[in-house]
Every structure is written in structure tokens, then in C-alpha cells.
């Protein structure tokens, strides 16, 4: 019996809960370590970034207004969906894939638990010197641009996304350039999860083309990036100065290091602390 001819899949973008092809009509080929063609992926354009930002903005208020308890359950549900796609995700990663998938699922579980605890740990009541009830609470910053590293294409991405969406933000993510497939498989795990469409939008493409558009888009409120070059880091910060995006670019990170990657500190850059005063005397 002859060997079956496999179907080479073209992974599409994930925008607003749908899977469109790039509006630019461009695609690139992905090869494995032995140079075998494994998939085609879209090469996203500036317009795709803009569409994804629009979708994020539509979805974000509803997600932010969901109770923290509900967001926590939805993130845990995402971990369940990833568990169901363990093999597909591991295959997409390649070498050591299983270990990376396991760590990624556990990372989502970690941040699922933060949804309804972060405000308690990092918010608080302020004992002002006067008859006022004064308290500080975190709110999501809005729409976050996520630039994923090539190193650990799934775990790196998940580590950047999870702290962002836990607090009610939406994100537009640019997948690893060298291996975007795990991110696109993750998008297929997200779609049937309970996460509303548009909260995690996934693009594949070239940083050289897209980083600038992330940095200058005025409707992106913050940037979370890792594994970018020094030039791209500077570009992200310079472009972001125009609307004062909150930019958080990691240096070297070992994403397998739980101590380093699982902390409320990863959430801090993507919340706005709001302080509310009310007189408490008549």
C-alpha cells in the first residue's frame, strides 16, 4: 500500500473569532528542521493589524465587564481546550514539544487564578488623613499588542498573553516568525473555548513589516513583547511615544522558569490603577 499523500494545511489568521486569510493575499511556507514543507501561513499586512485592533476594541469592554470569577473560569477552560490539543500543539512545536505544551497549559492555569485575586493583592484601601473612603483598584488598560518570541513559540506566546487577558484586556498578537504554527493551532483551541471572539487575535507575518504598525497604531494601548531585536525594541518605544502606549519589552527570559514568569508583576504593566475618593462624613 502506498503511503498516503498528506494534505498541507494553510493556517489562516484569527481575527474577531473568525479565521480570515490575510487581506494582502500573501502567504509563506513553513518547513520543519529537516526542511520538509509542513504548512503554509498567512503573511499579515498593516491592514490585518488594523482589522485585528478593531476586533479587539469591539470585544474588550464585554470581557472587561465580565466578573473576575467568570474570566478565571474561562481561562481555565482555555487550559482544558489546550489539554485536548496537546499532541497537535506538541507536533507543531517539534523538538521538546510535549514539555513546552505542558508548561504552556500550566501557565494558563496559573494566570487563570490571578483574575479574581490580582485586585485584592495589588489594589487596596488608602488611609487618607481625612473623612474619605479612598480606594485603588486595577482596570484593564485596553488593547495590547503582543509580539511573541521565536524562542519557545508556544510557551513564550502564552506567557505574554495570559497576564494580559487575565485582567480584561484584549490583544493583537504577532506569532513567532520562525514557527508561527503553534500560535495558529492555539488560535484554533481558543475559538471553541469560552473566550469571546476578538479577545485574542493572532497574526502571522514578519516583524520587519509589522512591528512599526503595532508601535504607531493609536488604538493600541500597550505593548507586551519578548525576543525582539534591539532595533525593534527602540522602534516599539519610539512609535509608542505618540500616544504614550505602555511598552513592556522583556530582555532574556527563560520561559520555563516558573519563578520568573509567574508573578503579579507580569500583570502590572497592563492595568491602570484607578483611585476613587468619596466623602464618608456628612
Amino acid at each position, binding site marked *: 500500500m502506498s503511503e498516503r499523500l498528506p494534505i498541507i494545511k494553510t493556517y489562516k489568521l484569527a481575527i474577531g473569532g473568525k479565521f480570515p486569510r490575510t487581506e494582502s493575499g500573501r502567504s509563506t511556507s513553513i518547513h520543519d528542521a529537516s526542511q520538509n514543507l509542513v504548512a503554509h501561513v498567512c503573511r499579515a499586512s498593516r491592514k490585518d493589524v488594523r482589522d485585528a485592533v478593531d476586533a479587539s476594541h469591539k470585544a474588550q469592554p464585554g470581557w472587561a465587564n465580565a466578573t473576575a470569577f467568570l474570566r478565571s473560569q474561562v481561562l481555565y477552560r482555555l487550559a482544558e481546550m489546550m489539554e485536548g490539543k496537546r499532541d497537535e500543539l506538541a507536533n507543531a512545536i517539534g523538538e521538546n514539544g510535549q514539555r513546552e505544551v505542558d508548561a504552556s497549559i500550566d501557565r494558563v492555569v496559573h494566570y487563570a487564578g490571578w483574575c479574581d485575586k490580582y485586585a485584592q493583592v495589588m489594589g487596596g484601601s*488608602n488611609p487618607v488623613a481625612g473623612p474619605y473612603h479612598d480606594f*485603588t483598584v486595577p*482596570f484593564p488598560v485596553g488593547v495590547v499588542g503582543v509580539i511573541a518570541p521565536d524562542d519557545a513559540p508556544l510557551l513564550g506566546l502564552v506567557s505574554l498573553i495570559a497576564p494580559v487577558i487575565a485582567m480584561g484586556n484584549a490583544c493583537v498578537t504577532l506569532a513567532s516568525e520562525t514557527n508561527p504554527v503553534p500560535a495558529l493551532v492555539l488560535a484554533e483551541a481558543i475559538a471553541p473555548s469560552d473566550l469571546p471572539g476578538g479577545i485574542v487575535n493572532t497574526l502571522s507575518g514578519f516583524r520587519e513589516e509589522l512591528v512599526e504598525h503595532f508601535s504607531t497604531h493609536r488604538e493600541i494601548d500597550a505593548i507586551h513583547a519578548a525576543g525582539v531585536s*534591539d532595533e525593534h525594541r527602540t522602534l516599539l518605544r519610539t512609535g509608542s511615544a505618540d500616544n504614550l502606549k505602555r511598552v513592556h519589552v522583556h530582555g532574556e527570559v527563560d520561559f520555563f522558569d516558573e519563578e520568573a514568569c509567574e508573578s503579579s508583576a507580569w500583570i502590572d504593566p497592563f492595568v491602570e490603577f484607578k483611585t*476613587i475618593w468619596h466623602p464618608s462624613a456628612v
Partner: protein
Amino acid sequence: MGMTTVSGTQNAGHAGSEGVNQNTTRPARLDLRGASGGGLFEYAPAPESVRPDIADSYGLFIDGAFVEPENGARFASINPATEDTISMVAQASVSDVDRAVRAAREALPTWAGLSGKDRGKYLYRIARRMQERARELAVLETLDGGKPIKESRDIDVPLACAHFFYHAGWADKLKFALPGREPRPVGVCGQIIPWNFPLLMLAWKIAPALACGNTVVLKPAETTSLTALRFAEICAEIGLPKGVVNIVTGAGETGKAIVEHSDINKIAFTGSTQVGKMIAKSVAATDKKLTLELGGKSANIIFEDASLDQAIEGIIEGIYFNQGHVCCAGSRLFVQESILDTVIDKLNDRMGSLRVGDPMDKNTDVGAINSKEQLATIKKYLALGDEEGAVRHDACGSALPEKGYWCKPCFYSGVQPSHTIAREEIFGPVLAVMSFRTPDEAISRANNSPYGLAAGVWTDKGSKIFDVARRLDAGVVWLNTYNKFDPTSPFGGYKESGFGREGGRHGLMAYCQ
């Protein structure tokens, strides 16, 4: 728009009033607004009598001592209420800034290595000494900046002292501040502060930096350097190790030298959004940490079910406090349509009793505009407000002094959201009044601004007030109050009002890593 009084109709007869403290000739008004109405009471002048010693000229405070600026350059610090020169202040050059940074770098290991308790004790010493010299600091602040003495005496200086007291206690408790983290100092901090609350902004910057084990190079604004220099004297007086605090005076070029210095680890800037963006670009290629506290166009929203008289007081305080030179000033007022006429009447009324004039008089409500440049900026906006078709109300009863920089507090009705005065930060005693029908409309219009510093909401309905507070994009939301500050309470903005918080536990995050 149904305003009942407009500019000039109420105070048409006040031309006979001469000088700041002699409102005796102002005619009583025809309406009967009760004993609290403006113009019915006359006040005798009540000038503050303390006179602080002010040197003819000042040097730079570097490495624990006052030193001459490298090139000997100085500029005048002016009393904006009289246009008199108070003192000559040093203009720090690039190499002066470098000297200050080197001193701060050298002092860093010892200061960071001190026990938290000892660092705290130095901060307590500073706080105590500032309290003891509070009156002198208040007078100096008012002379140099033009703000009413009752504000510098009762707000600026006590709050500045409180900031040092509060942060003194953090110095040995940092491991409790941010759970699960081990805070370390950031290093040498370059801090640039504005002219609206000179000593208070200095306290907001220096107190948390020192508590967390950092050393600082601080530049006060060029029009208001004197209290920072007095603070430097206090540092020397209480034996603060040399180099921990360095004060370099000067204008934009000095600030630029700080921002661009390669051996500074963190920049903290309070000032305009335009300069904030330039700084963000300037440090983009470096590892400098950055916090920015920038401009605002804060919304004050008043619902028909608010306690009106209380709200009017809050609105007045929200916009005319410190001549409106307040980044979180409630400069856009959104009034529910059903009470618009009433609110405009009451605002006109209340403004009639605002006392504008000699900042050193304890009865003065609104002092001098900080500088000639700022007065020109405000006047530019007033011209635009008139030109674009809004109606100006400036029913203020006081005549303005002839010398000095003065602006009558005013508000505009008939303002459209597209008007310049409804969109841009004026940083003066100018309020734009607009109306709305539903809470949703109020929120979307309040949020329709690149800024997001503060907001105010006035209603006696509990659920509504918290719902609106939740939905406003602002870092500080005052409910049934406005312009309240406290060292325990984080302050800072959303969006283009900057990033980072100052004060409270959250303020420490900016000075730790």
C-alpha cells in the same frame, strides 16, 4: 443655552474698585442672595507677615554643598504678583548636570546599603525640619509662584511634609509593599518637576526615591526654584549624606541634559504632555525606566440629583484652585440638561465672591498667574473661546492689580465639544461648561479625550456614582468631592496623561526593580 448673566453684567460697576485689598468701593449688587453672597461683606487686608531670608543669588546644590554653576550663568526668579526680581538662580549646564549625576552615583552604594530604618530616619528628619520651617516655606512658595498664601500654607507645604513622613515609614518595610517581590533600588534618578506645586512635586519625587534607596538629581521649574533650594538647605542641615539629593536649577536645556545623561537609571517627569512624549522618544533606545505625569482635561460631571450647593463648591475648587494651574483641574464641566440654567446661575453667583489679588493676603482665593508666558497662553485660549462662539462669564468682583500677571477666573457656556477650550489643556482659571442628557452620554463625552488624569462625579445616588466612576477613563476619580490629595493615595493618569502612579504603595513601584 439659557444662561441668565454673561460677562460684564454683574460687575459692570466695579470699576471704582482700586487695588487688590480694597474692595470697599465695590457696589453691593441688586439681587438678594443672602449673607454668603459676594460683595456683601468687606474684608480688611490681611497680609502674611513672615518674611523669609532670601539670598541675592543661589548656586547649585551638588554633593552636599552649594556650588557655582560652571559658566556662572544665572537667571532672575520673578514674583509674578509684582514682577519684582526675588533672586538670581543658577543656570546649570550640561557639565553641571554631569557633576550632579556623578555625585549621585558616588553616593548611591552607601545610601542603598544603609539599613531601611536609617534611611527612614533621615526622611523623618527631613519631614520634621520641613514642618518646623513650614511658614517660611509657604511664604517663599507664594512669593516665587504667585499662589495664594492660604493654599501654600494649608495645602502645599503640609502635604509635602506628610509625603516625607509617609515614605519615611516605608524605607524599612519595602518587602511588604509588593507581595512576592524583592524590591531593589533603581539607581540614580533624574527628576524634573513643574512650577504649579513646586515643593509638593519635589516631595512626590524625592520622598519615594530616597525611601527605596535611590539617589536623585532634581530640577525644579525655572520660574519656581526657591523652595527647592530651601529644601537643599534642609538636607544639609539635617545631615543627609552628601550626594543623595542634588538640586540643579535651570530651564529646558538643563532638563534635556538630565534626560540624555547616560548614567541615569530612571527619569521621572511631571509636566506637559508634549514634553513627556519627547522624553519618551529620547529614552527609547536606553534602559532608563520612565514615569510621566502629564497634562489633563479632566471632566467634572454633575447630575440633576446632586447636592447642588456642595457640587458648586467642588466645581469652583476643581477649576480655580491654584489659578487653574493644576494638571487634574476639572476644566470640563458636564451638567445634566435639566439643571444647566440653575448651575450657571449659581456659578455666576459664587464667582462674584471669589477674591482675586495679592497672593500674600490670607483672604485671597485666586492669586497671580505663574509667569508672563503662561498668562499669554491663557489669553490665547480666551481669545479662541470668544472667537469660536462660546459665551464668557467672568463675574469676579475683584479688580485686578496693575502690576503682575493676572487673569480673571471665568467660565464659558455654550461650548461645543469641538471648541479648542473644550479639548486642550489651558492650565489657567478657565472652565468649559457643557450639558448632557443621559449618564451614557456624559461618560462617553468625558472619555472622549486623549487625556485621562482625573474626573469628578456629583450625585447623591450611590449605585450610579460608583457605576460612573468605574466607567470613566481616569486615574483619579473624585466622587462628591474634588482635588483631594494624600500621600497614601496613588495619583496618576490613563492614556496621554502619562504612566505610573505617585503616592501610596503603587508609587513605590516606580522606584524599585
